């Protein structure tokens, strides 16, 4: 049974189609594995009964001949997606006791495709963090351990840390993530899996607890490029309930994996080689360039001159939107309420008790940059710089088809590290944030191991709504990398 959890989504689908095993068997295998891996703290809420019900229904549908693309595939859902009848926390105390009466569009589409949902995955509180340490439900452990220091638990990255850890530890075949500044790609890199943040507008944001509306985007996290493509096929599509979701057709992403990238031009941005870049990361990047060359693509040196401005821009735009998006958590209608002597006192006490330190920090920054007298200097300026960053990419894409960069400057670090200075933590996303600001698709795939045996990821960035090219190149790199290492205990 244990072997079933090691299958890819594509393979499991094929074998269930042949009748080799049932969705119920596959789901039971995952539920058993979840029990054995509780120590990772990947799930906030496990829903084994619901999963088995869904699996039974999937098996019945299969018998009747009606099979969705993800029929019977056990997935985990990041606990930022509202799920009908299942507690949704955003890893925050302020949503204590909140059970939505509605299903987010993206998780609803996965269910419609026949998926089985194992539970709700841990994350940084309100998706604010790069380590999963800000969760009110405790840190998540990365299933990987450093060979140099196997006794120390490492972070899975964040904010989709529970998603990445669960997929890497084989306690979900795939998971939903959300990415605002790197929240899918950085944890995918830290945990040795594949994750893609699609173009902004590709997936509906309806029913996803908002962090920064102009940046938030849902995406799949899985163990292969093909699995991500299969999941994204189900997740993507225009949604009239989200005004920012794009009315563009969804191609068959899996069909884009032709294995042929001959003649493609791959941009290598000079600005992604900062002083602090680890030699190991630089090395794996060079290796990635070499693989692409071998497959017939042409590396092209490009410049993205405003890269250095991306981090400060992001830390104005994202907190500004967050400060407003999180105003609704006021203790009046749902979630936590701490009584007070007046309305304002109730607000103060509820929000002080309900929000963790990182969330409070970002609300304060966001409130500050939008304040009268500071708006032009911060928010308005940041919007202009954001435009320049997007223009950098647009110019680059006049000559190249895809851009290759490292996903994160370092491999996974120890739980508890990088907590003294928030800026050190924020630097984790230095390579992923520019893509987010430009709204472009970005995929991270495992490309090798550090000297200590930790996964290192590379990022592929594509043109708007050209996830197909990203997938195509990723497929070639995946084969070249032949990443077969497994984390502890898998």
């Amino acid at each position: 049974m244990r072997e079933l959890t090691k299958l890819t989504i594509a393979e499991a689908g094929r074998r269930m189609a042949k009748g080799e095993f049932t969705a119920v068997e596959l789901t039971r295998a995952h539920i058993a594995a979840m029990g054995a891996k509780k120590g990772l703290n990947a799930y906030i809420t496990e829903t084994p009964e619901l999963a088995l019900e869904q699996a039974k229904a999937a098996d019945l549908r299969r018998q009747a001949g009606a099979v969705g693309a993800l029929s019977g595939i056990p997935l985990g859902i990041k606990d930022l997606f509202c799920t009908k009848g299942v507690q949704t926390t955003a890893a925050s105390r302020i949503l204590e006791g909140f059970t939505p009466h509605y299903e987010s569009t993206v998780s609803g589409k996965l269910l419609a495709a026949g998926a089985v949902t194992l539970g709700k995955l841990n994350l940084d509180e309100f998706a604010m963090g790069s380590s999963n340490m800000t969760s009110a439900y405790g840190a998540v452990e990365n299933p990987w351990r450093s060979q140099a220091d196997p006794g120390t638990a490492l972070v899975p990255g964040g904010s989709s840390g529970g998603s990445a850890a669960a997929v890497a530890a084989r306690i979900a075949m795939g998971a939903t993530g959300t990415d605002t500044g790197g929240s899918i790609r950085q944890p995918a890199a830290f945990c040795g899996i594949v994750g893609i943040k699609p173009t902004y507008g590709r997936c509906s944001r309806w029913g996803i607890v908002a962090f920064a509306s102009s940046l938030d985007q849902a995406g799949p996290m899985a163990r292969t490029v093909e699995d991500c493509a299969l999941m994204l096929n189900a997740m993507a599509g225009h949604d009239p309930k989200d005004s920012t979701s794009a009315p563009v057709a969804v191609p068959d992403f899996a069909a884009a994996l032709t294995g042929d990238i001959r003649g493609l031009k791959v941009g290598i941005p000079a600005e992604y080689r900062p002083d602090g870049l680890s030699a190991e990361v630089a090395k794996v990047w060079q290796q990635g360039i070499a693989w692409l060359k071998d497959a017939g693509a042409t590396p092209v040196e490009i410049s993205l001159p405003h890269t250095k401005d991306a981090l400060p821009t992001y830390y104005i735009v994202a907190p500004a939107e967050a400060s407003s998006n999180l105003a609704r958590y006021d203790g009046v209608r749902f979630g936590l309420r701490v009584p007070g002597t007046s309305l304002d006192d109730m607000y103060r006490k509820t929000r002080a008790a309900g929000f963790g330190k990182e969330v409070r920090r970002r609300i304060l920054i966001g409130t500050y940059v939008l304040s009268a007298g500071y708006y032009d200097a911060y928010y308005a300026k940041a919007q202009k710089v954001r435009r320049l960053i997007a223009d950098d990419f647009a110019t680059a894409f006049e000559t190249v088809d895809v851009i290759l960069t490292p996903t994160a400057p370092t491999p996974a670090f120890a739980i508890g590290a990088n907590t003294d200075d928030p800026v050190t933590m924020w630097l984790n996303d230095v390579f992923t944030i520019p893509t987010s600001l430009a709204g472009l698709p970005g995929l991270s795939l495992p490309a090798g191991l550090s000297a200590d045996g930790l996964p290192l990821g590379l990022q592929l960035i594509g043109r708007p709504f050209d996830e197909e090219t990203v997938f195509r190149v990723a497929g070639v790199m995946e084969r070249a990398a032949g990443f077969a290492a497994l984390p502890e205990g898998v």
Partner: protein
Amino acid sequence: MAYLIAGETGDWEVVIGLEVHAQVISKAKLFSGAATDFGAEPNDQVSFVDAGFPGMLPVINRVCVEQAVKTGLGLQAAINPTSVFARKNYFYADLPQGYQISQYELPIIGNGVLLIDMNDGTTRPIGIERLHLEQDAGKSMHDQHPTKSFIDLNRSGVALMEIVSKPDLRSPEEAGAYLTKLRSILRYLGTCDGNMQEGSMRCDANVSVRPPGSTELRTRCEIKNVNSIRFVQQAIEYEARRHIEVYESGGTIAQETRLFDSGKGITRSMRSKEHAHDYRYFPDPDLLPLVLDPAMVERIRLTLPELPDEKKERFMRDYALNAYDAGVLVAEQSSASFFETVAKGRDAKAAANLVMGDFFAALNASGKTIDDPPVSAANLGKLLDLTADGTLSGRLAKDVFALMVETGKAPDVLVEERGLKQVTDTGAIEAAIDAVMAANPDKVAEVRSGKDKLLGWFVGQVMKQTQGKANPGVVNDLLAKKMQG
């Protein structure tokens, strides 16, 4: 004739700008599908979007956009092809999202103009600064429980048009005329029902004063949420006098928001500028800029009804009415169309007099509306016809009108039933005259000796004899002849 307030140091001019919140007539809310009916049970018309639940997103209601465009066209205003929704952030228990979606830097409608009609028949143009779309908040109820406040979110998310005038108004009377005219236009357009009692039209007044002839704009105070035209006028007058008193005693006016206490007829401070909210406006990232299709704007332009100003002009031209009468008749679309039904093919002046006189009096007394009038326009027209063809005298017509109100019957039916037909048969009238003259030989002699005044007495007697049915013109003629002869 300018309105000035006399202070101790001299006269003062009042400068007024009005911000009107007009609830858009639409079945659904501005950003959700929830219903908007007035008077539903509390929290019966609330979607998860209106209640600010996690993950909920706004989607613009196209009908509300079209209503705003229609209103903009009715105010001869600039229609901005691109406008932007912004979040106005503040915390309050009846504001579920913690922000109101409004428009800030780029409103849907720009500069326009509204012509106010003064009582002396003159008009004056008042500038419209802008019109923008925004969501209403819910309602807090503080009197339902000893220690708790209750919240009703039915209104939360309902579409409002905030219509901002330029500081062009100079008297409470002008402010009243502005609101009356704006309400009239909104009702003509069908974009707001203008009901101030139900709160579907609310007004904030910005008031300052200055010496006459000055062009400076002094510090203004904003009086919030006044719910009748009369109260707006009272609040302005009180506030202007307060400013004058402060200035004349050497003080300064601080910019602040004030509330009108209609019971006491005074305004009092609500919050000062130092305590004003910092709303932290920024473009709502959940919504794309609102881009209007020029074809849609043109289509709406073609559906615009004849508006009060055009109608008034036409009434003055086609029916030879004076400005005041025309103004009164066009104030409501339904009274204008009622008048036109009565006047069609008839003496317009007589029709105007009848509608604005006896009919409006009866309408007020009956407590009915012009859409369900005590006397139909068709029957009023028939009444005019009966007067014109001499069937009824003016006096009889009044009696018949009263009967029409009482019975709801048509005038020709009443004339027939009650034998109220005016007598023009000279024989019958002559007989009556002869009888009266025969009974009063002394008075006949007096008339014949030159006391013409007594003729009126004879007319009255003859009318009495004929139960008022005699044609007064015929009576006069015959009487004069007989007296001579």
